[in-house]
């Protein structure tokens, strides 16, 4: 299951990444394997999405969210 497939209000735990370059940026921003993510909302036009991770909100595009594999 990819992060991009979650609906607003749903949550999950990060398992792994499918893109090395993107994973470095995501980890720097606090998205680490084992962290739990809550999808807070989707932008009015359907993309990007806003998630809560380690206590703060992050926005990322669906294409970027699709590189995060959830447990």
């Amino acid at each position, binding site marked *: 299951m990819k992060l991009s497939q979650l609906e607003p209000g749903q949550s999950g735990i990060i398992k792994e990444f499918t893109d090395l370059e993107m994973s*470095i940026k*995501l980890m720097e921003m606090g998205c680490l394997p084992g962290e739990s993510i*809550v999808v807070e909302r989707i*932008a009015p036009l359907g*993309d*990007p999405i806003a998630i809560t991770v380690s206590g703060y*909100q992050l*926005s990322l595009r669906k294409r970027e969210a699709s590189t995060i594999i959830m447990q």
Partner: protein
Amino acid sequence: MGQELKVALVGNPNSGKSTLFNILTGLNQKIGNFPGVTVEKKEGFYKLPDNRIARIIDLPGTYSFYPKSRDERIVMDALADENNSVHPDLIVFVADASNLKRNLLLFSQVADLQIPIIIALNMMDLAINGGISISVDELALKLGVQVIPISARKLEGIEQLKLAISYSSSIPLQLPSIDVVALAPHLIKKIQSDLNIEHPYIALQLAHQHEQLSFLSREENKLIEDIKSEFSFHSQKLQAVETIGRYNAINDVLFDTVKLNSDPGRETMSNRIDNVLTHRIFGFVIFFAILFIIFQSIFAWSEYPMSLIERLFIWVTYQGHQILPLGVFADLLIDGVLAGLSGVLIFIPQIAILFAFISILEDTGYMSRVTFMMDKIMRKVGLSGKSIVPMIGGFACAVPSIMSTRNIENWKDRMITIMVTPLIACSARLPVYTLLISMVVPDEKVWGFINMQGIALMALYVLSILSAIIVAWAMKLIIKSRERGYFIMELPVYRMPRWNNVLLTMYKSVKTFVFEAGKIIIAVSIILWVLSSYGPSQKFESIEEKYKLESYTQKYSSNEIERLEASEKLENSYAGLLGKSIEPVIKPLGFDWKIGIALITSFAAREVFVGTMATIYSVEADESNLASVRDKMLMAKNPDTGMPVFTVAVAFSLMIFYAFAMQCISTVAIVYRETKSWVWPAIQFAYMTSLAYIASFIVYQLLK
């Protein structure tokens, strides 16, 4: 003059670094550029109790040492190179206490550079409200550095921080977080010995980023390149390993020091606000309502202070003509310098109001929601959601906005943003628009509250946005690129704006305008006065002779002769000749040679148009008649037809010309600096000028 202590503020974006910088330095700030690059360098100072001067450098916010943009590269350049002019004696690491884990990632990297460091643990109030308790002493003990809890917005802990800075150790005390050498033992040792580098982490960073660092020689770069291929160095894999290793170490530190007392609950205040402000319908309605309010306010609130400044200058001009002896000096002072000065000062109210709004939007966290909402549309036309900030900034001035495109990581997104930002109606166009609108659009209200002039102004602003979008879309199809764009952005919690900060932003923007743009405006005013007062001397003498002939002195009164002579002199001055030479080209747009002069001089900056008009018409006007520029322009008649020069068609054609044309030397210069090539500014200049010519032509021919 005591000794100097160089202090660098380092931290994540949104950690409150800039707030702290403003508190520590107040108005003792200097905004410049980092050497060699165009990243804004914020520097300030304050006096330490022992008479030393603390020189504070606010380094750009970054999430890690692996830079994704040019802003972030500065951090590495400043900290890794001991010969850099901003290499600090002490680092104050500003950490967001409510998000300590992520903040400590950068801290652990910075700490490994072995520069003395203390932590300013900011936003303690937020952390406490969020149910996070941090045992500060324990944290300090585990990291080996001083930790000062502060709350910059509430001005708490600032004195303690200042004390800690004064009495900071001059040798690094921080404990190592991870075994850096173990990441790439042979490579690090080889770089250390070959390049004579003391600290292993700097050696490793050189391997990662040597191509982007400014302080290495070509030989050193080659050497590192060879060492990298010798040990088959894989930068990304190693970054991932390092990042995970650091987080493991941080988790160990935080395990005993940070406790989550209670679950703050999902429906926080910020979330509730977001439910409305990023709502699929209300979100956009509110965004456009805010834009509407901003532009109505610029007009409504600035009216009174502007007319005050206007009247003051009319009074000073009148007094000047009374007191000063007639002659070249008085003319230069009054019609050259004073006219130019009033053209600068008159726009202070509008600029201050606009920057107040921009500063509030950024401070509250709303600006990043705008980015969040607009990303999808922006991407369709070849821009990123991040382009919205430079483009909204473009309403104030294209120059800082083009500089701010540096945090757009993607090259293509960035280039397109740079290319279209000057189309956005900047504040320098505002004087041109205000003047022309007030001449031809009636100051009437529709439905009792909507100002017609405000509507005309808003239409020009909407036009600027539409044209930027269309051009961006066209460029998306033309410019080719392989680079990928990130859009991973923090959404900070909503906060009340800091009114001090709003005032400081207003002050700084006005100061920049008056001293940077103002210099050009006054200089151009004086040059213009010279150009319009002098001409080829033979021609001038023959005009003077002509009006002394009896055929004139008998036919006209002395007043009329004076006016005719002045008018003919202006027509034959250098400025007149210049304007006339381009008249055939601009005639189809409805412009005469006087407007031609203004078009030429306002290449320096658009607002010069107004100063030029002021000078041209005050030179031409009757001595005793000291009405404002607007009235003088309205009275201007076409000498051939006797009809007013500034008709509705001409005024709108002019406004459209200024909407599109690249009438700004500073923008050309900054685009050259940012793109490091003359190709981009040349393309930009060519496409904008053609667009302006064609659009003005159509508008004039339709309205005339």
